């Protein structure tokens, strides 16, 4: 095999004589020195070393067997008792045995290849990827013959058109029913409404307890949902509705409240209590972090920052619009209620948002 080593007659860099140079080298390119000579390894020359390496490989395979058996022993002997710690222990033991069984095979294979298998490099030819001119000519001829054999007598254009139309239309038989149903009722105007209505009480999330204005002390942030029945809150629709309806409510000192979003002649906050949609106007994460001193609300996803004391305007980050405000009031029993739904769609922007 080592003679293959230097069969290198395909070399691209053949020396071409370049004029009548007087020097030793007569080309504008160097000559390929050919594949370097093979350097024997210790295992090639020393049979004892070869023997030793063979033993190492055998040992590694044996170790792998032990690993596999170890996993089975761990499976039987150390069942998880349910607690987090014992699940971890079982995971660790099963995994360690499995890893030994896999790594044993792997390292044995590599060591075998590196230390014992013949490591002289061989040279084989490459051929151009393109087919030869004759083959191409034959291929074209075959295609033409095939087309001729297709046996169309009349106007080819008409047939072609009909065939292509049929092929283009048939996917519709699947696509139309699919697309018709895949988007539910396709009623995208739902983006614009939440379940807040005039008079809906503000309730604590997750307990669902309604909140009295007198319970809201200055500085603390309340995670608020609309009050509903316990039954509704165990349903799936609730999760979808909650995704739009969650509100973050805080009370600031009335003198700190620079502005809110109330239009002329209306009063959307109540005695320093303001309620804003918790859904970030950037791409919709819940805006959850409230900083008491600055009155800033921070969205943990991309750090949009809103100023609660100033109409929830964006002070920093990728969001563009303020969080929509939920107009609130207090009912006869002193509970906080919504005056109405949000005046604009909550959450991230979409094409038809203002339509």
């Amino acid at each position, binding site marked *: 095999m080592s003679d293959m080593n230097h069969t290198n007659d395909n070399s691209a860099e053949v020396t071409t004589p370049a004029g009548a140079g007087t020097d030793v080298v007569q080309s504008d390119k160097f000559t390929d020195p050919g594949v370097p000579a093979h350097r024997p390894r210790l295992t090639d020359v020393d049979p004892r070393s070869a023997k030793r390496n063979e033993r190492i490989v055998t040992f590694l395979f044996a170790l792998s067997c032990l690993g596999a058996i170890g996993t089975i022993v761990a499976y039987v002997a150390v069942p998880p008792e349910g607690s987090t710690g014992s699940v971890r222990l079982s*995971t660790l033991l099963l995994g360690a045995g499995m890893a030994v069984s896999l790594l044993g095979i792997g390292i044995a*294979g590599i060591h075998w290849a590196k230390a014992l298998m013949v490591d002289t490099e061989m040279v084989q030819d490459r051929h151009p990827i393109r087919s030869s001119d004759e083959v191409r000519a034959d291929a074209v001829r075959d295609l033409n013959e095939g087309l001729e054999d297709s046996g169309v007598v009349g106007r080819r254009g008409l047939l072609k058109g009909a065939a292509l139309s049929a092929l283009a239309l048939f996917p519709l038989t699947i696509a139309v029913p699919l697309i018709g149903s895949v988007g539910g009722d396709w009623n995208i105007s739902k983006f614009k409404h939440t379940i807040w209505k005039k008079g809906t009480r503000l309730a604590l999330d997750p307990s669902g307890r309604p909140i009295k204005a007198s319970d809201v002390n200055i500085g603390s942030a309340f995670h608020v949902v609309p009050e509903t029945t316990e039954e509704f809150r165990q349903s799936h629709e609730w999760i979808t509705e909650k995704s739009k309806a969650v509100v973050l409510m805080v009370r600031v000192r009335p003198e700190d409240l620079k502005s809110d979003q109330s239009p002329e002649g209306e009063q959307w906050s109540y005695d320093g209590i303001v309620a804003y949609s918790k859904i970030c106007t950037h791409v919709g994460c819940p805006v959850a972090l409230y900083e008491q001193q600055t009155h800033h609300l921070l969205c943990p996803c991309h750090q949009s920052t809103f100023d609660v004391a100033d109409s929830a305007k964006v002070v920093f980050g990728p969001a563009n619009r303020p969080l929509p405000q939920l107009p609130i009031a207090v009912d006869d029993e002193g509970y906080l209620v919504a005056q109405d739904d949000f005046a604009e769609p909550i959450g991230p922007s979409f094409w038809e948002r203002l339509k």
Partner: protein
Amino acid sequence: MSTAHDTTTTAAAAPAPTTRTGKAADYLDQRTGIGGVVKEFARKVFPDHWSFMLGEMALYSFIALLISGVFLTMFFEPSMALTQFEGEYPATATGQTVSVAYASTLEMSFEVRGGLLMRQVHHWSALIFMASIVVHMMRVFFTGAFRKPRELNWLVGFTLLILGLAAGFSGYSLPDDVLSGNGLRITDGVVKSIPLIGSYMSYMIFGGEFPGEHIIPRLFTVHILLVPALIVALIALHLFLMVLHKHTQFPGGGRTDKNVVGYPALPVYVAKMTGNFFIVFGVLVLMGATMAINNVWNYGPYDPSPVSAGAQPDWYMLFLEGSLRLMPGQGTEWVIFGYTLPLNVLIPAVVVPGILFTFLIVYPFLEARVTGDKREHHVLDRPRNVPVRTALGVAFLSDFILLAAAGSNDLIATHFGMSINEITWVYRILFFLLPVAAFVVTKRLCLGLQRKDRELVLHGHESGRIVRYANGEYVEVHTPLDDQERWMRVNYDAPAPLEIEPKMDARGVKRKGYGADKRWQGLSRFFYEDRVEPVTPAQLAAAHSHGDHDALEAGGQQAAPAAVGSGSTTGTDSQEH
């Protein structure tokens, strides 16, 4: 063609097999003709290099994903129906109303033996899979392995990268915990930002409004059927093309575009590839056994209200996260005829990855065009020998890494006690400056290394031995390179910018297509204006005849100007870019 007769003669010519294996082989061959395949492949030569392991690593971690994934499908229930969690562990979850998908994830972790192990192996494998794809792609890019005839295989590979992202994303979303739900919510926000069809696409994905009850079963089908089937098919095509083209080889003595130098499939590659598979799988299992990952019970079931700060997406999504974070929101949402165009989302989430992916798709074709090169390439480039390609690659890579870092800017801020706003501003500026700087520095570095190569070839290695000449002069002796090393340093092409036909044709009429040609030439100049030509034998001979004793000065001064732009059309002004 009397086949019956033929068969008998062949059978008679070869002695009937006597051993068991022989008989089995004979049986198989008579029914499949497999002998031809064995003859073709058993001793086929494949070149060797550590970096060729990267594609293999992607393949093996994919197999690990399949094996652990099949385990998980036995126990996972992709349903968003609500249920009362019955299990005793984890205690915090007992009695909670959770989705069936979430409950089955917990049961799989706490009640199925080896379930947590397999979940963790699966997740680690996904991370390593994506990492090896990306690093493998970098190897292919920086060595020019995408050149003719491998452009199509590059595209197959690119599609695999996108499918890998899809697989990771769809899997991450399945357990229906707070993290995965918020990930989906961000996706929903991004999808809604798409003009015209965004809202409808959101409905299409979620089967109505977010989150609805359909998304997890749908993603499950995507995750365990659609995407893996496509990946398997494309990996098959990828490897078929790889075998058809025969693997590229690094430059070196005796390696040309017309041969393959390496080791035979049997036994060397059979042993090495099997070995590598078990090592990769073994390491993944070790990671799964010892390193907790995505313990969803710590985050809780999906609920639209809470969100955990400091939660990170998987690493391959970080660049998108970072991109979303860096975009300033003010003035970037436009309303046109009453329709809303949220550029603050579209640009970072659609345009930025769009630019990256477009670059990856067109690069091989672009480079071939500006090189004016139609040859097949089977010998790889040393990255320094194609400075502009290497520099472009590093420029894109630097921005990718920057965006990924920006995706963790809150961790950086809390860790180093810095203000998020300041960090964000630094990143915003670096987003534009860093790639330019990376480009310039890398290109310089490559040209410098090439000059160093020239110098070494012309003047040899410093030996550290000083001799004193009769005239009293001291010089350091330089040892000339041996044949192999010299060959490595001179065996490359330094293409010159494209030449184009003159503006006027023979009759003095302005040629059609001149403008386009001119633009391509401009681009070609950008690539190849500055270049360092390999040393020619004549130059080496000249350097020798100067006498070895002035080697030092020559190395410092003469080689450099001779080297830069020694081609015919070259200007020496490298500042213009």
